[in-house]
């Protein structure tokens, strides 16, 4: 190369080159060639220089401008190399500060491989202090013994000043964020994992070790799904190494570093808390938890904002948001004061217990309580009251409540059922505590603005449902609609709302709710699904589609699990009602008897459910005239016994039982007994309500019926008009119940021979009943019967026959031949024919009636009807038959010790006519 001589040459060349600089090289070369004053060596150099000028163009320009394109950082792969007494087998991971290798010990037979982390280090001289610090740190780390912390063996510095760490090798390690993503972990599972990590870090903190670099890539998951935290305390070493300089923020992974780390302030266990919370947030949202856009000008506020945005769009539970916020507070002192506290809150959250991060208000505690106990408990009501009174008692009661948890469930049932057992009628005057409470609650709930969606919807639904059970339909509807508005998927609220609408015959609105439920059927829990189906059946019933209702309910019953006793009973009771409406009371009774059996087993003999069923059976029995009156009496007695035991002898429900019994007695003609019952009922009723109460109206109806039957019409009609006014007010003008009473009034008008007045009521009534109940219903037929009678009175015999024939057909088929109703229609039809002098027809109608058990038992019927037959016989010259009939009548009804009445006189008259 160059020696001193050539150096001189070069210097000389340099001088000469000046002249040729920036001149065309061709010329220069030619010139140089010609010169003789230059030594050959120098010439050589000079020529090269000149050429260099040319050739350099693009290349050199590029080169000189981009000479240093970049200094690239490339950590060499050290696989195959040896460090101290470990051989590096495979590179497992690459990091900014270090690489991790799988390694094997050379000097022993230990087969198990370890992991070695080799730090990139840029310090040329590692002074003694640093070395000692490093070693001491490793000693501390090697003492950490926790299933979720990577087992640390030892650390050291190699002969060439390379720091390295030896630890357990994790098989198939995956960083936690990858694991969560691949395994598609649920929110619950992620929080569980973080709780376990908090446990591990808590342990570490107790050993006075702070991790300082918690991030997802430092949390590994092995092939068993176990968590391992790696890279403890490394950061300390780094920090000391580079002491003396403003730390580049990128030393710490900024994505998870706490503000104090970024600002290079004191690092405490609180920093780990921050980072772990950041990891939790990142795993849950699958996004970067912190803003850290501009490290140079770090603004903690940017982080805060970013977190809030993330939380908002993630739509987490309030508690979870509060936990995350607390963990990520900028000021370390505002965070959880220990890892254990964070751990406990996470744990509590998983168990739906209150978390410390959330404000411990009574409303909050209440919500948590409700969440843990899915059945709305009686204690919930108690708590509700407390809220309106004061906060203190809530907390006290809550503690009690937790002990009473088991009892609560049973008490719930009782409360709801006892509300259920009573009619909407009855609760109107009664149970002030419940009603008043519920109304207060209703008002309170309107006034307060619950920020917690879940609490709001739950409360509204509960109170709405309770209100509907006590008959406050409008209020109930309001609240239930609100509950649904707050939470469209509050299915229970929708079911109750549908039931409400069905009750009020608002079918379109009911259908709307049912449709919504239908589309979300898969999301309904099983129990609610059955409720939904029951609601559907009820709707069919109200729409008078009995056949379909029957099919559906039979299907539903067969699909029920034998464990669902409550729902089986509910379904079967509904089935029985359907059967009753269809005019099949006997079958209804059979079903109810089965149900009663079930209820006895499940609830006991003295229970509201059993009482209800017994009551229904009694009612049905009295509709079947072929029934055994003894049995009926027994059943009624039994019912009132149970009810008295359950409710006390002055409870309105007992009054109702007496009333019902009274109706049956009246129907069987036992008028005095009937009146007796009615009066007992009235006495109890007035103890509870005032005279305009519906129950009183019911009783009055019975009383009027009784006095009418006794022949006393004077006070009857007025009393009934009064009762009707109550009915219209209570039920509505076209309500079934109102119609029934109107029918009765019409009947009385008939009795008073006020035909037109009767018809005035009856005609629209018929249309209404037919529409609501159907053609084959007793009530409809009864109206028809009265219409016939009205026509008779008005002497519209053709009309009477027209209605009569149609009604008779239906009645015979659907009600039965030997039933009063049918007999009544038949008889009145016959009367019409008689009036039109169509005696054969009349005879054909009346004769079969004499064979009926009704007539055989009921002397009044027998006499009244038979006399008409006699008249017909006489009119058709069937004198023999007439004679026989008269004889029979006189013998049967007017024996020696029997009363003689007008009919008797008529009979004697007729007999005498026949004599000659």
């Amino acid at each position: 190369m160059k020696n001193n001589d050539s150096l001189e040459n070069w210097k000389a060349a340099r001088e000469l080159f000046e002249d040729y600089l920036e001149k065309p090289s061709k010329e220069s070369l030619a010139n140089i060639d010609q010169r003789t004053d230059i030594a050959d060596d120098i010439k050589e150099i000079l020529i090269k220089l000149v050429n260099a000028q040319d050739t350099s163009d693009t290349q050199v320009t590029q080169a000189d401008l981009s000479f240093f394109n970049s200094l690239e950082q490339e950590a060499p792969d050290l696989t195959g190399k040896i460090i101290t007494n470990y051989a590096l087998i495979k590179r497992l991971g690459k990091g900014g500060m270090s690489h991790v290798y799988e390694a094997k010990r050379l000097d022993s037979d230990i087969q198990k491989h370890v992991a070695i982390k080799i730090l990139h280090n840029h310090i040329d001289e590692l002074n003694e202090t640093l070395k000692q610090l490093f070693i001491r740190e490793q000693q501390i780390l090697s003492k950490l013994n926790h299933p979720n912390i990577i087992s640390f063996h030892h650390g050291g510095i190699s002969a060439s000043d390379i720091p390295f760490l030896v630890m357990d090798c994790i098989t198939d390690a995956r960083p936690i964020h990858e694991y969560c993503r691949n395994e598609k972990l649920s929110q619950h599972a992620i929080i569980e994992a973080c709780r376990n990590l908090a446990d591990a870090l808590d342990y570490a903190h107790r050993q006075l070790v702070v991790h300082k670099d918690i991030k997802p890539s430092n949390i590994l998951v092995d092939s068993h799904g176990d968590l391992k935290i790696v890279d403890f305390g490394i950061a300390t070493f780094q920090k000391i190494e580079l002491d003396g300089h403003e730390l580049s923020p990128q030393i710490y992974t900024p994505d998870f570093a706490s503000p104090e780390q970024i600002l290079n302030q004191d690092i405490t266990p609180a920093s780990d808390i921050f980072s772990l919370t950041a990891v939790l947030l990142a795993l849950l949202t699958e996004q970067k938890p912190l803003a850290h856009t501009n490290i140079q000008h770090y603004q903690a506020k940017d982080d805060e904002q970013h977190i809030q945005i993330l939380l908002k769009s993630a739509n987490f539970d309030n508690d979870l948001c509060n936990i995350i916020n607390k963990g990520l507070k900028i000021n370390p002192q505002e965070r959880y004061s220990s890892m254990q506290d964070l751990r406990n809150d996470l744990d509590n959250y998983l168990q739906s217990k209150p978390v410390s991060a959330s404000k411990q208000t009574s409303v909050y505690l209440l919500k948590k309580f409700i969440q843990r106990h899915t059945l709305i408990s009686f204690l919930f009501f108690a708590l509700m009251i407390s809220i309106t009174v004061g906060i203190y008692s809530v907390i006290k009661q809550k503690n009690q409540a937790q002990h009473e948890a088991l009892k609560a469930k049973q008490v719930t049932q009782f409360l709801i059922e006892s509300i259920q057992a009573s009619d909407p009628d009855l609760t109107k005057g009664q149970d002030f505590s419940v009603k008043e409470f519920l109304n207060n609650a209703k008002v309170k709930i309107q006034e307060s603005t619950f920020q917690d969606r879940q609490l709001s919807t739950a409360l509204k639904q509960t109170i709405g449902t309770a209100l509907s059970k006590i008959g406050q339909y409008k209020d109930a509807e309001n609240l239930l609609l609100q509950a649904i508005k707050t939470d469209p998927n509050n299915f229970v609220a929708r079911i109750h709302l549908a039931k409400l609408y069905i009750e009020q015959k608002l079918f379109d609105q009911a259908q709307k709710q049912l449709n919504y439920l239908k589309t979300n059927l898969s999301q309904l829990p099983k129990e609610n699904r059955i409720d939904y189906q029951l609601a559907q059946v009820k709707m069919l019933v109200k729409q008078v589609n009995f056949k379909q209702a029957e099919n559906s309910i039979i299907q539903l019953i067969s699909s029920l699990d034998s464990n669902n006793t409550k729902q089986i009973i509910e379904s079967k009771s509904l089935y029985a009602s359907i059967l009753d409406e269809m005019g099949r009371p006997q079958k209804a009774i059979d079903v109810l008897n089965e149900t009663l059996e079930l209820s006895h087993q499940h609830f006991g003999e003295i229970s509201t459910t059993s009482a209800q069923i017994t009551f229904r059976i009694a009612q049905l029995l009295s509709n079947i005239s072929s029934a055994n009156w003894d049995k009926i009496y027994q059943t009624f007695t039994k019912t009132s016994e149970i009810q008295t035991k359950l409710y006390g002898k002055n409870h309105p429900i007992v009054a109702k039982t007496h009333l019902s019994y009274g109706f049956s007695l009246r129907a069987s003609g036992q008028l005095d007994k009937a009146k007796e019952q009615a009066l007992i009922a009235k006495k109890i009723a007035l103890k509870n309500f005032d005279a305009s109460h519906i129950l009183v109206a019911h009783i009055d109806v019975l009383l009027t019926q009784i006095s009418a039957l006794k022949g006393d019409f004077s006070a009857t009609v007025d009393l009934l008009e009064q009762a009707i006014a109550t009915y219209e007010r209570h039920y509505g003008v076209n309500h079934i119940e109102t119609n029934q009473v109107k029918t009765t009034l019409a009947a009385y008008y008939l009795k008073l021979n006020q035909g037109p007045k009767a018809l005035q009521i009856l005609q629209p009534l018929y249309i209404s009943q037919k529409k609501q109940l159907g053609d084959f219903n007793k009530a409809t037929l009864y109206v028809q019967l009265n219409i016939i009678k009205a026509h008779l009175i008005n002497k519209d015999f053709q009309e009477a026959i027209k209605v009569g024939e149609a009604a008779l057909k239906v009645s015979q088929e659907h009600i039965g031949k030997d039933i009063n109703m049918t007999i009544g229609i038949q008889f009145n039809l016959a009367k019409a024919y008689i009036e039109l002098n169509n005696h054969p027809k009349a005879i054909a109608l009346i004769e079969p009636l004499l064979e009926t058990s009704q007539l055989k038992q009921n002397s009044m019927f027998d006499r009244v009807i038979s006399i008409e037959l006699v008249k017909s016989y006489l009119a058709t010259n069937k004198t023999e038959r007439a004679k026989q009939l008269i004889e029979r009548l006189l013998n049967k009804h007017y024996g020696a010790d029997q009363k003689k009445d007008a009919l008797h006189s008529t009979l004697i008259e007729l007999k005498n006519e026949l004599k000659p």
Partner: protein
Amino acid sequence: MLEYPHMKNQITKILSGKVNGRDTLDQVFNLMYPEIKKLANAQLARLNTGQTITPTVLVNECYMKLAKPTELSFENRKHFICTVAKCMRQFLVDKVRKNMRLKRAGEISHEPLTQLVGDNDVDFKLLEIDEIITKLNLIDPAMAELAELRFFSGHSLQEIADIQKISKRTIIRKWNMTKSFIITLLDEK
């Protein structure tokens, strides 16, 4: 914790005294070099594998940390910048040399290997440049200085012209000369 102001004062002091040639500058160099080394190391430590950093950035960091050139007088600033360039050169060369030494010794080189990625055809290697500059220094110190500034100071030709208080025309001419020498010297190897 280093006190930059302190060092700055020292440098300023030395520089504001009469600049007696190399001795003074050597003093400044000796003072500055350890700091530059640490600063540059810290910078490089920031890098993740595969990440790149330009020497310009590297050097600018040093400027920022050490002193604001504008605080020095013109003469001093010139000297200052030259010294920084010198330090950076030294730093990089040392780094590469160490790596090579370790590799040769069979030890694991854990040093991040700084590779200078040149452009297409012209592949300047750092050590070669270092050598060349050393040679240039023997031929013409002014050329050597220019080359050093060009490659290691992070300044553009224009800025260097300003620092040296010469015209653009002049600097271009000077650079053309230097460039030719560099290429010729490279060929010679």
